[in-house]
């Protein structure tokens, strides 16, 4: 009898304790949710709601109201828009590839030579924390058709005669984007190359590979995640850049952001601009997500 009642008491106590821990656990979870709440709320209010509104309005007819896909259809059948999108994407792609190729040896050198890194890295990082507008100013001082220092020097050397107008055309924009592309690529790539074990390369060299071959077959494949990350960053920055395309613009817009902005600000075709903005967002986010997916896959394989 006594053992039975004792067992019953123990059971009751056990349920009480487990109820208490469960309650405590729930309270803890509640506390954690409460702590995360402000951050979520802020982001929902100033990112998700505006983006949702943008999407919603892009599907509304501007004059009559009501659901309409006409802005998407109009955009995707507009040869001018598509041509500009094409030039935007090709400039972005070209600049990304060139920046990575030009920055790769420098990043490698900085990753391997500590002294050089400590001197050069802070110095070449300065452009990274400048408004892009300032880079535009620099490009104008360097390459403006008549007063640019480079143009004056070329004239003085007798290589060209008279002004050169390439700055206010697509080459000028590509050069300006390449300028900041190299800065970003150097920083990202040297960070990744620093984490690649140097001994792997030395082993390859000691087994008879030339340093170049060791780099190409050992170091470069291990640096691919960095190359992908840097490329995605540079590419998405370029396709949505606004300041340099406007400052260095010629008669023909080369960048998609200019078309969107002029639809929004001067032509008063707001909903058309919203639809185009959504299309650009989809492109930019797909690039980022694709890069993430490749990176995840790469991580599994290695």
């Amino acid at each position, binding site marked *: 009898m006594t053992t039975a009642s004792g067992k019953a008491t123990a059971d009751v106590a056990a349920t009480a304790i487990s109820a208490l821990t469960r309650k405590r656990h729930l309270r*803890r*979870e509640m*506390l*954690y949710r409460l*702590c*995360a709440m*402000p*951050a*979520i709320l*802020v*982001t929902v*209010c*100033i*990112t*998700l709601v505006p*983006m949702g*509104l*943008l999407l919603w309005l892009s599907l509304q007819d501007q004059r009559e109201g009501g659901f309409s896909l006409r802005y998407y259809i109009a955009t995707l059948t507009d040869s001018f828009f598509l041509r500009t999108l094409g030039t935007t994407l090709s400039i972005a792609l070209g600049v990304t590839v060139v920046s990575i190729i030009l920055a790769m*040896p*420098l990043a490698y050198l900085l990753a391997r030579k500590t002294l050089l*890194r400590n001197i*050069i*890295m802070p*110095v*070449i*990082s*300065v*452009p*990274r*924390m*400048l*408004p*892009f*507008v*300032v880079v535009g*100013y*620099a490009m104008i*001082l*360097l390459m403006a058709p008549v*007063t640019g*220092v480079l143009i004056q020097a070329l004239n003085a050397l007798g290589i060209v005669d008279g002004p050169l107008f390439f700055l206010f055309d697509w080459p000028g924009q590509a050069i300006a984007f390449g300028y900041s592309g*190299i*800065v970003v690529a150097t*920083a990202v790539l040297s*960070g990744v190359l620093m984490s690649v074990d140097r001994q792997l390369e030395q082993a390859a060299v000691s087994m008879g590979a030339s340093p170049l071959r060791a780099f190409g077959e050992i170091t470069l494949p291990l640096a691919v995640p960095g190359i992908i990350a*840097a490329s995605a*960053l540079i590419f998405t*920055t370029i396709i*949505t850049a606004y*300041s340099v395309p*406007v*400052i260095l613009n010629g008669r023909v817009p080369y960048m998609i952001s200019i078309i969107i*902005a002029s639809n*929004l600000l001067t032509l008063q075709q707001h909903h058309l*601009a*919203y639809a185009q*903005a959504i299309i*650009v967002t989809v492109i*930019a*986010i797909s690039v980022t997500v694709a890069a993430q997916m490749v990176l995840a896959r790469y991580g599994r394989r290695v």
Partner: protein
Amino acid sequence: MPRGLTRFFTNLGWTVYVAAIVTWLLFPLALILLSSFQGTISITTDVTNLNLSAYEKIPDRYWNSLWFTIQISVVATVAALLVSVPAAWAMVRGKLAERRFLSNVVLLPDVVPHIILGIALLTLYMQVGLAKTWLGMLLAMLSLSLAMGLRFTEALLEGLPEEYELAAETMGANKLQALWLILMPLMAPGLATAALFIFISNMVTFELLFFISGPNASPIAVRLFSDIIDRGIMPHSVAMASIMIYISIAFYAIVALTLGPKYLAGSNVSRKG
């Protein structure tokens, strides 16, 4: 002999290449500085009559913009850290089932292109009357700072073992004491770094703020941009661009001196706009 010669040419090649890239990156900025001290935009090689006339001619609206940018950058940075520290703590320590989802929501402003987020905010602000206002700019900047702040603080907390807090609690501290007396001092240096990086990237934000800025709420990057469109390039704008370069140099000097140059490599800060 040929081997020595090869090595000589390899080293020469490297030196020329590094010098070329570094020159290409620094020469345009040097031109801005030189032009600002010559007080003219047609630069000459004459360095005898350097003067400060361009700096003296910087109009008040530039100084107001700079001051405005500093103000909202500081407020946004502080607010972002105040919000993101508890959020990061909850996400790292809480082991909530929906953690990945929550953290991705907060990081969203980083993935959406700034110019698009700017346009989206304009549509929302026009409905609620926040366009071209101080508060509107601050909130826009906050969304960005918050994403950066969460990335920094999450990484920071993941690097700190939970045992310290648990030990304090075992010894009789309550949760709040454990957080305030143990976790906060451990996080402080990292938070200072995060604040510095968030502040400087707020200072240079352009695309996000361009569409929602107005005459009375105009960050310095937008002011420099609109002036070059309206008036062309002017000596006083070049002087203000130089001031932005000094700010960037000061930032990197602080980072290099306090944290060491290794912090500069890597992609922890995305450079957009």
